[in-house]
């Protein structure tokens, strides 16, 4: 009991160690949120290009669409085929090689890496959603004179988004937890914060269990928010 008490003291109170955790949560959330936004934008774009290409009859595919589709395919193959940590290492030690190791630079690098990575997975999730919408919805939109883009925007994407929300939630949770590997470039996120505290106090139990609990809480909060969003979007399904 005494050892746990002193463990708590050393982990959180001593030398204002709690600030490592607070600052860590901030960095983790910052990277997650911006990577999420970037991933969503990239993913939806790629998904639309890929499904526009697949839905267009062969003789009507323009050269631009073909090139874009090819680029998207390469992107998906490379990003999904290499480990996230390797992508991050390349981004930081190769692309960002000449930058100083400030928090700002590292956060920007991490956001870009995780955003690009997440975008590849979001793209396939959103594409599966687009493909799951009955062909008749697109035909009805087009038969009224709406363009492909407008039909996508007002009819297909909203329905697709609703269908893939659970899968997107999964991706978001994975993203939040995966940000812990930014420790390899030295960014002081939640995990790195705990590692520093462990190194300073020679106490492993409480810092690591504490961040596990913090991650868990953040994921639970996220799940709850996603649940609310899903119920709201399901409004049109209530008989």
């Amino acid at each position, binding site marked *: 009991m005494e050892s746990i008490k002193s463990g708590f003291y050393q982990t959180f109170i001593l030398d204002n160690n709690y600030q490592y955790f607070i600052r860590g949560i901030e960095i983790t959330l910052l990277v997650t949120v911006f990577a999420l936004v970037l991933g969503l934008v990239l993913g939806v774009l790629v998904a639309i290009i890929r499904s526009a290409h697949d839905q267009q*009859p062969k*003789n*009507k595919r323009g050269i631009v669409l073909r090139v874009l589709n090819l680029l998207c395919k390469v992107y998906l193959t490379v990003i999904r085929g290499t480990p996230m940590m390797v992508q991050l290492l390349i981004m930081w030690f190769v692309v960002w090689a000449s930058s100083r190791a400030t928090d700002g630079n590292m956060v920007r690098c991490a956001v870009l890496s995780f955003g690009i990575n997440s975008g590849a997975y979001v793209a396939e999730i959103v594409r599966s959603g687009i493909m799951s919408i*009955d062909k*008749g*919805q697109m*035909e*009805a*939109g*087009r*038969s*009224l*004179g*709406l*363009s492909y883009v*407008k039909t996508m925007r*007002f*009819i297909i994407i*909203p*329905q697709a988004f*609703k269908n893939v929300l659970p899968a997107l939630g999964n991706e978001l949770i994975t993203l939040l937890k995966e940000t812990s590997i930014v420790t390899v470039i030295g960014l002081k996120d939640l995990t790195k914060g705990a590692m520093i505290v462990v190194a300073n106090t020679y106490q492993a139990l409480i810092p690591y269990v504490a961040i596990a609990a913090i991650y868990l809480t953040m994921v639970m909060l996220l799940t709850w928010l996603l649940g609310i969003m899903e119920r709201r979007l399901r*409004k*049109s*399904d*209530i*008989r």
Partner: protein
Amino acid sequence: MIYVKDLSKTFGDNQVISHIDAHIKPGEKVVIVGPSGSGKSTFLRCLNLLEQPTSGTITFDGQEVTAPHGDINHIRQHMGMVFQHFNLFANLTVKKNIMLAPVQLKLMTKEQAEEEAMRLLRLVNLEDKADSYPVQLSGGQKQRIAIVRSLAMKPKVMLFDEPTSALDPEMVGEVLELMKKLADDGMTMVVVTHEMGFAREVATRVLFMDGGVIKEENTPEEFFSHPRDVRLQEFLSKVL
């Protein structure tokens, strides 16, 4: 109004439509009947380019529908289409289903479109469903709303692709009733259907399609009482 010249459509090796010529005049109600797989739905879907014809030309109101870089979206605004499976937009309420196209294509303001939507809903006695979602409606209600959704665009011609085939028998009547009302109001209509009663009563001309060609076309009286084509005689003996 619609001129079809030498229209053909193949899916892979399967020739679904071969060298069809047709002319649909303003105010006509053309009903197309035929066995399944005869190409009648494909023919109808070619008219507004939901299917890309393999060869041949279609001209609507002086504009070539099949022109390689024609403005198909603009042409489709004047050609309403009603589908077998209704295809109401599942994510929008009934009222918004009707308003979407006129508002997005800037033909009406939001207020005008809303007024028009309510007028159309009153026409089919469904004004109390304005804020319902499609899943909450019966098949017959959905199809009547799909029809007025097309009407909101003030089309010059309406294409019907087996509009009653997916309905429960007791709901067929209400949809046919609305189609008759449209016909009486002078709408130009092209209807693919299995409802021979409707063909007999409403059509000004009936086409019989089989194997991708128009085997016979005639006034409904002649078509049903003195069919000349052997295949048509056989068909009518089975369905009547």
